Protein backbone atom coordinates (compact mmCIF):
# COMPACT_ATOMS: atom_id res chain seq x y z
CA UNK A 1 0.00 0.00 0.00
CA UNK A 2 1.58 3.17 -1.11
CA UNK A 3 0.80 6.58 0.17
CA UNK A 4 -2.32 8.34 -1.03
CA UNK A 5 -0.53 10.87 -3.18
CA UNK A 6 1.68 8.23 -4.72
CA UNK A 7 -1.13 5.93 -5.65
CA UNK A 8 -3.43 8.58 -6.91
CA UNK A 9 -0.61 10.28 -8.67
CA UNK A 10 -1.45 13.86 -7.92
CA UNK A 11 2.07 14.45 -6.74
CA UNK A 12 0.95 17.45 -4.79
CA UNK A 13 -1.43 16.05 -2.25
CA UNK A 14 -4.02 18.58 -3.28
CA UNK A 15 -5.53 16.70 -6.16
CA UNK A 16 -9.10 15.53 -6.29
CA UNK A 17 -8.18 11.94 -5.68
CA UNK A 18 -7.45 12.58 -2.06
CA UNK A 19 -10.93 13.78 -1.30
CA UNK A 20 -14.06 11.77 -1.54
CA UNK A 21 -16.24 14.42 -3.11
CA UNK A 22 -14.07 17.48 -3.46
CA UNK A 23 -14.29 20.42 -1.13
CA UNK A 24 -17.58 21.90 -0.13
CA UNK A 25 -16.70 25.30 -1.47
CA UNK A 26 -14.44 24.61 -4.40
CA UNK A 27 -14.88 22.61 -7.59
CA UNK A 28 -14.83 18.84 -7.33
CA UNK A 29 -11.99 18.60 -9.84
CA UNK A 30 -9.49 21.46 -9.61
CA UNK A 31 -7.34 22.41 -12.56
CA UNK A 32 -3.72 21.45 -12.97
CA UNK A 33 -1.27 22.97 -10.54
CA UNK A 34 1.20 25.16 -12.46
CA UNK A 35 4.67 23.69 -12.41
CA UNK A 36 3.62 20.48 -10.74
CA UNK A 37 4.46 17.15 -12.38
CA UNK A 38 1.51 15.86 -14.38
CA UNK A 39 -0.55 13.14 -12.74
CA UNK A 40 -0.14 9.58 -13.88
CA UNK A 41 -2.27 6.51 -13.94
CA UNK A 42 -1.21 4.01 -11.32
CA UNK A 43 -2.22 0.43 -10.94
CA UNK A 44 -4.96 0.55 -8.30
CA UNK A 45 -3.49 -1.67 -5.64
CA UNK A 46 -5.99 -1.96 -2.80
CA UNK A 47 -5.20 0.32 0.09
CA UNK A 48 -6.25 0.52 3.68
CA UNK A 49 -9.01 3.04 2.98
CA UNK A 50 -10.40 0.72 0.32
CA UNK A 51 -10.87 -2.07 2.84
CA UNK A 52 -14.35 -1.11 4.01
CA UNK A 53 -15.88 -0.59 0.52
CA UNK A 54 -14.33 -3.84 -0.71
CA UNK A 55 -15.54 -5.84 2.30
CA UNK A 56 -19.01 -4.35 1.92
CA UNK A 57 -19.02 -5.00 -1.83
CA UNK A 58 -18.02 -8.63 -1.47
CA UNK A 59 -20.44 -9.20 1.38
CA UNK A 60 -23.40 -7.74 -0.52
CA UNK A 61 -22.62 -9.60 -3.74
CA UNK A 62 -21.96 -12.97 -2.11
CA UNK A 63 -24.90 -12.75 0.27
CA UNK A 64 -27.17 -11.74 -2.63
CA UNK A 65 -25.91 -14.73 -4.60
CA UNK A 66 -26.64 -17.22 -1.83
CA UNK A 67 -30.08 -15.67 -1.30
CA UNK A 68 -30.83 -16.11 -4.99
CA UNK A 69 -29.64 -19.71 -4.88
CA UNK A 70 -31.90 -20.36 -1.90
CA UNK A 71 -34.85 -19.46 -4.12
CA UNK A 72 -33.59 -21.02 -7.29
CA UNK A 73 -31.56 -24.18 -7.62
CA UNK A 74 -33.22 -25.45 -10.79
CA UNK A 75 -30.88 -25.91 -13.72
CA UNK A 76 -30.77 -22.78 -15.83
CA UNK A 77 -31.75 -22.65 -19.47
CA UNK A 78 -28.35 -21.17 -20.19
CA UNK A 79 -27.00 -24.69 -20.85
CA UNK A 80 -26.16 -25.18 -17.20
CA UNK A 81 -26.29 -28.95 -17.54
CA UNK A 82 -23.64 -28.82 -20.25
CA UNK A 83 -21.39 -26.60 -18.16
CA UNK A 84 -21.86 -28.59 -14.98
CA UNK A 85 -21.23 -31.78 -16.91
CA UNK A 86 -17.87 -30.35 -18.00
CA UNK A 87 -16.92 -29.82 -14.33
CA UNK A 88 -18.01 -33.31 -13.30
CA UNK A 89 -16.24 -34.79 -16.30
CA UNK A 90 -12.98 -33.26 -15.09
CA UNK A 91 -13.51 -34.80 -11.66
CA UNK A 92 -15.17 -38.15 -12.45
CA UNK A 93 -13.52 -39.01 -15.77
CA UNK A 94 -10.32 -36.99 -15.36
CA UNK A 95 -10.72 -35.55 -18.84
CA UNK A 96 -12.38 -32.72 -20.65
CA UNK A 97 -15.55 -33.75 -22.45
CA UNK A 98 -15.16 -34.63 -26.09
CA UNK A 99 -17.55 -34.45 -28.96
CA UNK A 100 -20.19 -37.15 -28.54
CA UNK A 101 -19.60 -37.80 -24.83
CA UNK A 102 -22.64 -38.66 -22.76
CA UNK A 103 -23.43 -36.62 -19.65
CA UNK A 104 -21.85 -37.89 -16.45
CA UNK A 105 -24.05 -39.60 -13.89
CA UNK A 106 -23.29 -36.90 -11.34
CA UNK A 107 -24.52 -34.19 -13.72
CA UNK A 108 -27.79 -35.86 -14.68
CA UNK A 109 -28.45 -36.95 -11.10
CA UNK A 110 -28.18 -33.34 -10.02
CA UNK A 111 -30.59 -32.21 -12.75
CA UNK A 112 -33.02 -35.02 -11.94
CA UNK A 113 -33.08 -33.86 -8.32
CA UNK A 114 -32.91 -30.08 -8.66
CA UNK A 115 -35.00 -30.16 -11.87
CA UNK A 116 -34.88 -27.91 -14.93
CA UNK A 117 -36.03 -24.33 -15.47
CA UNK A 118 -38.20 -25.47 -18.37
CA UNK A 119 -40.79 -27.37 -16.39
CA UNK A 120 -42.41 -28.89 -19.47
CA UNK A 121 -39.32 -31.02 -20.10
CA UNK A 122 -39.96 -34.49 -18.66
CA UNK A 123 -37.22 -35.71 -16.34
CA UNK A 124 -36.70 -38.97 -14.44
CA UNK A 125 -37.37 -39.00 -10.69
CA UNK A 126 -34.62 -37.91 -8.33
CA UNK A 127 -34.49 -41.30 -6.60
CA UNK A 128 -34.60 -43.39 -9.78
CA UNK A 129 -32.07 -46.20 -9.28
CA UNK A 130 -30.43 -45.74 -12.69
CA UNK A 131 -30.47 -42.65 -14.88
CA UNK A 132 -30.12 -42.86 -18.63
CA UNK A 133 -28.41 -39.81 -20.17
CA UNK A 134 -30.65 -40.10 -23.21
CA UNK A 135 -33.60 -39.06 -21.03
CA UNK A 136 -32.04 -35.62 -20.62
CA UNK A 137 -31.59 -32.65 -22.92
CA UNK A 138 -29.73 -32.79 -26.21
CA UNK A 139 -30.28 -36.56 -26.31
CA UNK A 140 -27.84 -37.04 -23.45
CA UNK A 141 -24.87 -35.73 -25.40
CA UNK A 142 -22.83 -32.79 -24.21
CA UNK A 143 -22.46 -29.83 -26.53
CA UNK A 144 -19.62 -28.36 -24.44
CA UNK A 145 -17.03 -30.72 -25.88
CA UNK A 146 -14.06 -28.71 -27.03
CA UNK A 147 -14.89 -25.68 -24.92
CA UNK A 148 -11.75 -24.05 -23.55
CA UNK A 149 -10.93 -25.17 -20.01
CA UNK A 150 -10.14 -21.98 -18.07
CA UNK A 151 -13.50 -21.49 -16.34
CA UNK A 152 -14.11 -25.18 -15.72
CA UNK A 153 -10.66 -25.87 -14.32
CA UNK A 154 -10.79 -22.89 -11.98
CA UNK A 155 -14.31 -23.79 -10.89
CA UNK A 156 -13.31 -27.40 -10.24
CA UNK A 157 -10.35 -26.31 -8.16
CA UNK A 158 -12.71 -24.33 -5.93
CA UNK A 159 -15.67 -26.72 -5.92
CA UNK A 160 -13.87 -29.95 -5.02
CA UNK A 161 -12.41 -28.71 -1.72
CA UNK A 162 -15.71 -27.05 -0.86
CA UNK A 163 -17.55 -30.32 -1.34
CA UNK A 164 -15.03 -32.19 0.78
CA UNK A 165 -15.09 -29.55 3.49
CA UNK A 166 -18.83 -29.04 3.79
CA UNK A 167 -20.17 -32.43 2.67
CA UNK A 168 -22.37 -31.30 -0.22
CA UNK A 169 -24.20 -34.14 -1.99
CA UNK A 170 -22.62 -33.32 -5.32
CA UNK A 171 -20.43 -30.69 -6.93
CA UNK A 172 -23.49 -28.74 -8.07
CA UNK A 173 -23.83 -26.28 -5.19
CA UNK A 174 -20.04 -25.84 -4.77
CA UNK A 175 -19.68 -25.18 -8.51
CA UNK A 176 -22.38 -22.52 -8.31
CA UNK A 177 -20.57 -21.01 -5.32
CA UNK A 178 -17.39 -20.91 -7.37
CA UNK A 179 -19.26 -18.95 -10.05
CA UNK A 180 -20.40 -16.58 -7.33
CA UNK A 181 -16.79 -16.14 -6.26
CA UNK A 182 -15.79 -15.17 -9.82
CA UNK A 183 -18.63 -12.66 -9.87
CA UNK A 184 -17.58 -11.15 -6.54
CA UNK A 185 -13.97 -10.89 -7.70
CA UNK A 186 -15.19 -9.26 -10.89
CA UNK A 187 -17.06 -6.77 -8.77
CA UNK A 188 -13.90 -5.93 -6.84
CA UNK A 189 -11.96 -5.60 -10.12
CA UNK A 190 -14.63 -3.20 -11.37
CA UNK A 191 -14.28 -1.21 -8.16
CA UNK A 192 -10.51 -0.99 -8.61
CA UNK A 193 -10.86 -0.02 -12.28
CA UNK A 194 -13.28 2.80 -11.51
CA UNK A 195 -11.17 3.82 -8.55
CA UNK A 196 -8.12 4.06 -10.80
CA UNK A 197 -10.05 6.62 -12.84
CA UNK A 198 -10.07 8.83 -9.77
CA UNK A 199 -13.56 8.14 -8.57
CA UNK A 200 -14.12 8.31 -4.84
CA UNK A 201 -14.20 5.01 -3.02
CA UNK A 202 -17.94 5.03 -2.26
CA UNK A 203 -18.90 6.11 -5.76
CA UNK A 204 -16.61 3.39 -7.14
CA UNK A 205 -18.30 0.94 -4.79
CA UNK A 206 -21.70 2.12 -6.06
CA UNK A 207 -20.65 1.73 -9.71
CA UNK A 208 -19.40 -1.80 -9.01
CA UNK A 209 -22.65 -2.67 -7.23
CA UNK A 210 -24.72 -1.30 -10.09
CA UNK A 211 -22.66 -3.36 -12.54
CA UNK A 212 -23.01 -6.52 -10.48
CA UNK A 213 -26.34 -6.52 -8.73
CA UNK A 214 -28.58 -6.45 -11.75
CA UNK A 215 -30.65 -9.57 -12.21
CA UNK A 216 -28.91 -10.41 -15.47
CA UNK A 217 -25.39 -10.48 -14.04
CA UNK A 218 -26.54 -12.19 -10.84
CA UNK A 219 -28.26 -14.90 -12.88
CA UNK A 220 -24.96 -15.70 -14.56
CA UNK A 221 -23.02 -15.47 -11.31
CA UNK A 222 -25.21 -17.94 -9.48
CA UNK A 223 -25.23 -20.66 -12.11
CA UNK A 224 -22.52 -22.91 -13.47
CA UNK A 225 -21.69 -20.83 -16.50
CA UNK A 226 -18.48 -19.33 -17.97
CA UNK A 227 -20.34 -16.03 -18.38
CA UNK A 228 -19.99 -15.60 -14.60
CA UNK A 229 -16.45 -14.51 -15.46
CA UNK A 230 -17.66 -11.66 -17.69
CA UNK A 231 -17.23 -8.94 -15.07
CA UNK A 232 -13.75 -10.12 -14.12
CA UNK A 233 -12.74 -10.56 -17.76
CA UNK A 234 -13.85 -7.02 -18.71
CA UNK A 235 -12.38 -5.19 -15.73
CA UNK A 236 -9.27 -7.36 -15.50
CA UNK A 237 -8.46 -6.86 -19.16
CA UNK A 238 -8.83 -3.09 -18.86
CA UNK A 239 -6.54 -3.01 -15.82
CA UNK A 240 -3.95 -5.23 -17.50
CA UNK A 241 -4.01 -3.17 -20.67
CA UNK A 242 -3.68 0.15 -18.85
CA UNK A 243 -0.89 -1.30 -16.76
CA UNK A 244 1.23 -2.76 -19.55
CA UNK A 245 0.47 -0.80 -22.71
CA UNK A 246 3.10 1.85 -22.20
CA UNK A 247 5.77 -0.55 -20.99
CA UNK A 248 8.32 -1.41 -23.70
CA UNK A 249 9.73 -4.45 -21.91
CA UNK A 250 9.19 -7.95 -23.26
CA UNK A 251 7.65 -9.14 -20.01
CA UNK A 252 4.94 -6.50 -20.37
CA UNK A 253 4.11 -7.74 -23.87
CA UNK A 254 4.01 -11.32 -22.58
CA UNK A 255 2.05 -10.34 -19.47
CA UNK A 256 -0.67 -8.65 -21.49
CA UNK A 257 -0.58 -11.48 -24.04
CA UNK A 258 -0.98 -14.09 -21.31
CA UNK A 259 -3.87 -12.16 -19.74
CA UNK A 260 -5.64 -11.92 -23.09
CA UNK A 261 -5.00 -15.62 -23.75
CA UNK A 262 -6.59 -16.58 -20.43
CA UNK A 263 -9.62 -14.41 -21.23
CA UNK A 264 -9.89 -15.79 -24.77
CA UNK A 265 -9.81 -19.31 -23.34
CA UNK A 266 -12.81 -18.71 -21.08
CA UNK A 267 -15.32 -19.17 -23.88
CA UNK A 268 -15.21 -18.68 -27.67
CA UNK A 269 -17.19 -15.42 -27.51
CA UNK A 270 -14.47 -13.94 -25.29
CA UNK A 271 -12.22 -13.89 -28.35
CA UNK A 272 -13.74 -10.45 -28.85
CA UNK A 273 -11.71 -9.12 -25.91
CA UNK A 274 -8.22 -9.23 -27.52
CA UNK A 275 -9.72 -7.81 -30.71
CA UNK A 276 -11.20 -4.92 -28.73
CA UNK A 277 -7.92 -4.19 -26.96
CA UNK A 278 -5.96 -4.03 -30.22
CA UNK A 279 -8.66 -1.87 -31.82
CA UNK A 280 -8.70 0.56 -28.91
CA UNK A 281 -4.91 0.84 -29.00
CA UNK A 282 -5.05 1.51 -32.74
CA UNK A 283 -7.65 4.23 -32.20
CA UNK A 284 -5.47 5.89 -29.57
CA UNK A 285 -2.43 5.68 -31.84
CA UNK A 286 -4.20 7.21 -34.81
CA UNK A 287 -5.79 9.90 -32.69
CA UNK A 288 -2.42 11.02 -31.41
CA UNK A 289 -1.65 12.17 -34.95
CA UNK A 290 1.99 11.24 -34.62
CA UNK A 291 1.78 7.86 -36.26
CA UNK A 292 -0.28 7.16 -39.33
CA UNK A 293 -1.71 3.78 -40.10
CA UNK A 294 0.60 3.26 -43.06
CA UNK A 295 3.79 4.27 -41.31
CA UNK A 296 6.14 1.45 -40.55
CA UNK A 297 6.85 2.75 -37.08
CA UNK A 298 3.22 2.39 -36.07
CA UNK A 299 3.53 -1.35 -36.50
CA UNK A 300 7.01 -1.78 -35.04
CA UNK A 301 7.56 -3.36 -31.66
CA UNK A 302 9.06 -0.07 -30.52
CA UNK A 303 5.63 1.57 -30.64
CA UNK A 304 2.79 0.90 -28.17
CA UNK A 305 0.47 -0.30 -30.92
CA UNK A 306 3.01 -2.79 -32.25
CA UNK A 307 3.47 -4.27 -28.79
CA UNK A 308 -0.23 -4.45 -27.98
CA UNK A 309 -0.78 -6.01 -31.39
CA UNK A 310 1.72 -8.72 -30.45
CA UNK A 311 -0.04 -9.31 -27.14
CA UNK A 312 -3.42 -9.43 -28.83
CA UNK A 313 -2.14 -11.85 -31.45
CA UNK A 314 -0.74 -14.06 -28.69
CA UNK A 315 -4.02 -14.04 -26.78
CA UNK A 316 -6.37 -14.48 -29.72
CA UNK A 317 -3.96 -16.91 -31.38
CA UNK A 318 -3.94 -19.29 -28.42
CA UNK A 319 -7.73 -19.14 -28.19
CA UNK A 320 -8.10 -19.83 -31.90
CA UNK A 321 -5.52 -22.61 -31.74
CA UNK A 322 -7.50 -24.40 -29.03
CA UNK A 323 -10.72 -24.27 -31.01
CA UNK A 324 -9.03 -25.25 -34.27
CA UNK A 325 -7.26 -28.18 -32.61
CA UNK A 326 -10.56 -29.53 -31.31
CA UNK A 327 -12.31 -29.06 -34.61
CA UNK A 328 -9.59 -31.05 -36.38
CA UNK A 329 -8.62 -33.64 -33.77
CA UNK A 330 -11.74 -34.33 -31.70
CA UNK A 331 -13.42 -37.32 -33.36
CA UNK A 332 -13.66 -35.75 -36.82
CA UNK A 333 -16.66 -36.82 -38.80
CA UNK A 334 -18.55 -38.15 -35.79
CA UNK A 335 -22.29 -37.84 -36.06
CA UNK A 336 -23.42 -36.61 -32.69
CA UNK A 337 -27.11 -35.89 -32.86
CA UNK A 338 -29.56 -33.96 -35.01
CA UNK A 339 -29.38 -30.81 -32.86
CA UNK A 340 -25.64 -30.37 -33.02
CA UNK A 341 -25.53 -31.43 -36.63
CA UNK A 342 -27.98 -28.70 -37.40
CA UNK A 343 -25.65 -26.21 -35.72
CA UNK A 344 -22.90 -27.10 -38.14
CA UNK A 345 -24.93 -27.46 -41.26
CA UNK A 346 -26.10 -23.97 -42.13
CA UNK A 347 -23.92 -22.01 -44.57
CA UNK A 348 -22.85 -18.40 -44.23
CA UNK A 349 -25.74 -15.95 -44.25
CA UNK A 350 -25.03 -12.23 -44.39
CA UNK A 351 -28.69 -11.49 -43.83
CA UNK A 352 -28.81 -13.46 -40.59
CA UNK A 353 -25.52 -12.00 -39.44
CA UNK A 354 -26.90 -8.49 -39.86
CA UNK A 355 -30.16 -9.37 -38.14
CA UNK A 356 -28.57 -10.93 -35.09
CA UNK A 357 -25.47 -8.79 -34.64
CA UNK A 358 -27.30 -5.86 -32.96
CA UNK A 359 -27.87 -8.15 -29.99
CA UNK A 360 -24.33 -7.30 -28.94
CA UNK A 361 -25.16 -3.57 -28.84
CA UNK A 362 -27.27 -4.21 -25.79
CA UNK A 363 -25.34 -6.42 -23.32
CA UNK A 364 -28.14 -6.39 -20.76
CA UNK A 365 -30.97 -6.72 -23.25
CA UNK A 366 -32.74 -9.62 -24.85
CA UNK A 367 -34.27 -12.56 -23.06
CA UNK A 368 -32.21 -13.16 -19.93
CA UNK A 369 -34.01 -16.41 -19.06
CA UNK A 370 -34.96 -14.98 -15.70
CA UNK A 371 -36.16 -17.23 -12.98
CA UNK A 372 -39.49 -16.19 -11.49
CA UNK A 373 -37.99 -14.64 -8.39
CA UNK A 374 -36.15 -12.03 -10.47
CA UNK A 375 -38.91 -11.37 -12.96
CA UNK A 376 -40.27 -8.13 -11.50
CA UNK A 377 -40.88 -4.73 -13.01
CA UNK A 378 -38.43 -2.72 -10.94
CA UNK A 379 -35.62 -5.20 -11.59
CA UNK A 380 -36.30 -5.14 -15.32
CA UNK A 381 -36.43 -1.35 -15.23
CA UNK A 382 -33.17 -1.22 -13.31
CA UNK A 383 -31.49 -3.57 -15.75
CA UNK A 384 -32.64 -1.50 -18.73
CA UNK A 385 -31.36 1.68 -17.09
CA UNK A 386 -27.95 0.14 -16.46
CA UNK A 387 -27.91 -1.09 -20.05
CA UNK A 388 -28.53 2.48 -21.18
CA UNK A 389 -25.68 3.75 -19.01
CA UNK A 390 -23.30 1.12 -20.39
CA UNK A 391 -24.14 2.03 -23.97
CA UNK A 392 -23.95 5.75 -23.14
CA UNK A 393 -20.50 5.26 -21.64
CA UNK A 394 -19.17 3.33 -24.61
CA UNK A 395 -20.75 5.40 -27.39
CA UNK A 396 -20.17 8.67 -25.53
CA UNK A 397 -16.48 7.90 -25.24
CA UNK A 398 -16.29 7.24 -28.97
CA UNK A 399 -18.12 10.44 -29.87
CA UNK A 400 -16.47 12.88 -27.51
CA UNK A 401 -14.11 15.28 -29.21
CA UNK A 402 -10.47 15.39 -28.32
CA UNK A 403 -10.91 18.90 -26.98
CA UNK A 404 -13.36 17.60 -24.42
CA UNK A 405 -10.72 15.20 -23.17
CA UNK A 406 -8.32 17.91 -22.03
CA UNK A 407 -9.10 17.75 -18.37
CA UNK A 408 -7.15 18.46 -15.27
CA UNK A 409 -5.90 14.94 -15.35
CA UNK A 410 -4.59 14.79 -18.87
CA UNK A 411 -2.62 17.98 -18.38
CA UNK A 412 -0.62 20.12 -20.76
CA UNK A 413 1.98 18.77 -23.08
CA UNK A 414 1.04 15.13 -23.11
CA UNK A 415 2.73 13.30 -25.95
CA UNK A 416 1.74 10.26 -27.93
CA UNK A 417 2.30 7.89 -25.03
CA UNK A 418 0.27 10.05 -22.71
CA UNK A 419 -3.36 9.14 -22.77
CA UNK A 420 -6.01 9.97 -20.30
CA UNK A 421 -6.95 6.62 -18.78
CA UNK A 422 -10.64 7.44 -18.77
CA UNK A 423 -10.50 7.97 -22.51
CA UNK A 424 -8.50 4.77 -22.97
CA UNK A 425 -11.13 2.76 -21.09
CA UNK A 426 -13.81 4.57 -23.08
CA UNK A 427 -12.19 3.53 -26.33
CA UNK A 428 -11.92 -0.03 -25.08
CA UNK A 429 -15.63 0.00 -24.25
CA UNK A 430 -16.48 1.56 -27.61
CA UNK A 431 -14.26 -0.88 -29.52
CA UNK A 432 -15.91 -3.76 -27.66
CA UNK A 433 -19.48 -2.59 -28.15
CA UNK A 434 -19.29 -1.23 -31.67
CA UNK A 435 -16.77 -3.51 -33.31
CA UNK A 436 -15.31 -6.55 -31.55
CA UNK A 437 -18.45 -8.08 -30.04
CA UNK A 438 -20.62 -7.50 -33.13
CA UNK A 439 -17.91 -9.00 -35.28
CA UNK A 440 -17.80 -12.14 -33.13
CA UNK A 441 -21.59 -12.32 -33.20
CA UNK A 442 -21.59 -12.02 -36.97
CA UNK A 443 -18.96 -14.70 -37.44
CA UNK A 444 -20.50 -17.14 -34.99
CA UNK A 445 -24.11 -16.37 -35.80
CA UNK A 446 -23.79 -16.55 -39.54
CA UNK A 447 -21.36 -19.42 -39.54
CA UNK A 448 -22.97 -22.23 -37.68
CA UNK A 449 -25.82 -21.31 -35.38
CA UNK A 450 -29.46 -21.86 -35.90
CA UNK A 451 -30.58 -19.58 -33.07
CA UNK A 452 -29.50 -15.98 -32.39
CA UNK A 453 -26.62 -15.61 -30.00
CA UNK A 454 -27.77 -14.31 -26.62
CA UNK A 455 -26.92 -10.79 -25.47
CA UNK A 456 -25.15 -12.15 -22.41
CA UNK A 457 -22.20 -13.08 -24.61
CA UNK A 458 -21.18 -9.42 -24.49
CA UNK A 459 -21.64 -8.97 -20.74
CA UNK A 460 -17.93 -8.22 -20.41
CA UNK A 461 -18.71 -4.77 -21.85
CA UNK A 462 -20.81 -3.82 -18.79
CA UNK A 463 -17.91 -2.87 -16.49
CA UNK A 464 -16.10 -1.17 -19.38
CA UNK A 465 -19.10 0.97 -20.31
CA UNK A 466 -19.73 2.02 -16.72
CA UNK A 467 -16.03 2.73 -16.16
CA UNK A 468 -15.98 4.81 -19.35
CA UNK A 469 -18.91 6.77 -17.98
CA UNK A 470 -17.00 7.26 -14.75
CA UNK A 471 -14.03 8.43 -16.79
CA UNK A 472 -15.78 11.42 -18.31
CA UNK A 473 -18.85 12.02 -16.21
CA UNK A 474 -17.11 13.94 -13.46
CA UNK A 475 -17.24 13.20 -9.77
CA UNK A 476 -20.37 15.22 -9.06
CA UNK A 477 -22.44 13.35 -11.63
CA UNK A 478 -20.98 10.06 -10.58
CA UNK A 479 -22.61 10.51 -7.19
CA UNK A 480 -25.89 9.57 -8.85
CA UNK A 481 -24.63 6.03 -8.73
CA UNK A 482 -25.02 6.06 -4.95
CA UNK A 483 -28.85 6.17 -4.91
CA UNK A 484 -28.88 3.88 -7.94
CA UNK A 485 -26.86 1.30 -6.02
CA UNK A 486 -29.25 1.73 -3.11
CA UNK A 487 -32.20 1.00 -5.40
CA UNK A 488 -30.34 -2.04 -6.73
CA UNK A 489 -29.66 -3.52 -3.29
CA UNK A 490 -33.08 -2.76 -1.79
CA UNK A 491 -35.16 -3.92 -4.75
CA UNK A 492 -33.07 -7.03 -5.23
CA UNK A 493 -33.23 -8.03 -1.58
CA UNK A 494 -36.93 -7.19 -1.36
CA UNK A 495 -37.80 -9.76 -3.96
CA UNK A 496 -35.45 -12.30 -2.41
CA UNK A 497 -37.42 -12.18 0.79
CA UNK A 498 -35.34 -9.87 2.97
CA UNK A 499 -38.16 -7.69 4.30
Amino acid sequence: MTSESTVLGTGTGTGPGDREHGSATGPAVPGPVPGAPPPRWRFPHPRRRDALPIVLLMAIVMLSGVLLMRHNMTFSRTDELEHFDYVTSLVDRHMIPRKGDLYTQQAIRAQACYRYQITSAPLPACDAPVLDPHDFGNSGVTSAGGYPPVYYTATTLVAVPLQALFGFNSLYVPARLASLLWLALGSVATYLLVRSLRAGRWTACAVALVATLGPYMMSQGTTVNPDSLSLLAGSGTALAWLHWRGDPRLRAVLGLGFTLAVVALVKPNFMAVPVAVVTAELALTLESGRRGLLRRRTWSLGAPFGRVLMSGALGAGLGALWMLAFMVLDRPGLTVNPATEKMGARPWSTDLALRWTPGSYSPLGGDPFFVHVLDHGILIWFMSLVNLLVVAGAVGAALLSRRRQVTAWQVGSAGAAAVEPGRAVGYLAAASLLWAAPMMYAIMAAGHRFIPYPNRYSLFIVPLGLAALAGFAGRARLRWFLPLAGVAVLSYWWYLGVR
Partner: protein
Amino acid sequence: MSERSERTDRPGVGTSGRSGDGDRHRIRLAWLLLAALALAGLLACALLARHVIKVPHGYPRSAAAAPAAPSPAGAPAR
Protein backbone atom coordinates in the same frame (compact mmCIF):
# COMPACT_ATOMS: atom_id res chain seq x y z
CA MET B 1 12.91 10.06 -27.71
CA SER B 2 12.71 6.34 -27.04
CA GLU B 3 9.57 4.62 -25.85
CA ARG B 4 11.17 4.02 -22.49
CA SER B 5 11.90 7.68 -21.96
CA GLU B 6 8.41 8.51 -23.18
CA ARG B 7 7.12 6.19 -20.56
CA THR B 8 9.07 7.62 -17.68
CA ASP B 9 9.11 11.27 -18.61
CA ARG B 10 5.60 11.78 -19.72
CA PRO B 11 2.28 11.37 -18.10
CA GLY B 12 0.18 8.56 -19.31
CA VAL B 13 -1.19 5.13 -19.11
CA GLY B 14 1.05 2.27 -18.19
CA THR B 15 3.29 4.29 -15.97
CA SER B 16 3.25 2.22 -12.88
CA GLY B 17 5.84 4.32 -11.17
CA ARG B 18 8.48 3.10 -8.78
CA SER B 19 7.95 2.17 -5.24
CA GLY B 20 10.33 1.17 -2.53
CA ASP B 21 10.70 -2.21 -0.86
CA GLY B 22 8.40 -1.16 1.94
CA ASP B 23 5.71 -0.21 -0.51
CA ARG B 24 6.13 -3.50 -2.36
CA HIS B 25 5.66 -5.44 0.86
CA ARG B 26 2.57 -3.45 1.70
CA ILE B 27 1.16 -3.97 -1.78
CA ARG B 28 1.80 -7.70 -1.51
CA LEU B 29 0.18 -7.76 1.90
CA ALA B 30 -2.84 -5.89 0.56
CA TRP B 31 -3.37 -8.46 -2.19
CA LEU B 32 -2.88 -11.30 0.28
CA LEU B 33 -5.50 -9.77 2.54
CA LEU B 34 -7.85 -9.44 -0.42
CA ALA B 35 -7.32 -13.13 -1.26
CA ALA B 36 -7.95 -14.05 2.38
CA LEU B 37 -11.12 -11.97 2.33
CA ALA B 38 -12.34 -13.75 -0.80
CA LEU B 39 -11.59 -17.13 0.77
CA ALA B 40 -13.36 -16.21 3.99
CA GLY B 41 -16.35 -14.97 2.00
CA LEU B 42 -16.46 -18.19 0.02
CA LEU B 43 -16.33 -20.35 3.14
CA ALA B 44 -19.02 -18.26 4.80
CA CYS B 45 -21.20 -18.61 1.70
CA ALA B 46 -20.66 -22.38 1.65
CA LEU B 47 -21.63 -22.61 5.31
CA LEU B 48 -24.71 -20.49 4.67
CA ALA B 49 -25.63 -22.46 1.55
CA ARG B 50 -25.30 -25.72 3.47
CA HIS B 51 -28.05 -24.48 5.78
CA VAL B 52 -30.41 -22.53 3.52
CA ILE B 53 -30.40 -24.59 0.32
CA LYS B 54 -32.69 -27.56 0.62
CA VAL B 55 -31.43 -30.94 -0.55
CA PRO B 56 -34.09 -32.59 -2.74
CA HIS B 57 -35.73 -35.69 -1.31
CA GLY B 58 -34.12 -38.86 -2.58
CA TYR B 59 -30.82 -37.25 -3.52
CA PRO B 60 -27.97 -39.70 -2.70
CA ARG B 61 -25.72 -38.55 0.13
CA SER B 62 -22.72 -38.32 -2.17
CA ALA B 63 -21.78 -38.80 -5.78
CA ALA B 64 -20.07 -42.06 -4.87
CA ALA B 65 -23.40 -43.45 -3.69
CA ALA B 66 -25.01 -42.85 -7.07
CA PRO B 67 -25.55 -45.89 -9.34
CA ALA B 68 -22.95 -46.63 -11.96
CA ALA B 69 -23.15 -45.06 -15.40
CA PRO B 70 -25.06 -47.10 -17.98
CA SER B 71 -22.42 -46.53 -20.62
CA PRO B 72 -18.64 -46.09 -20.47
CA ALA B 73 -17.15 -42.64 -20.26
CA GLY B 74 -16.35 -41.07 -23.57
CA ALA B 75 -18.61 -43.34 -25.56
CA PRO B 76 -20.16 -41.61 -28.55
CA ALA B 77 -23.92 -41.44 -28.49
CA ARG B 78 -25.79 -43.90 -30.63
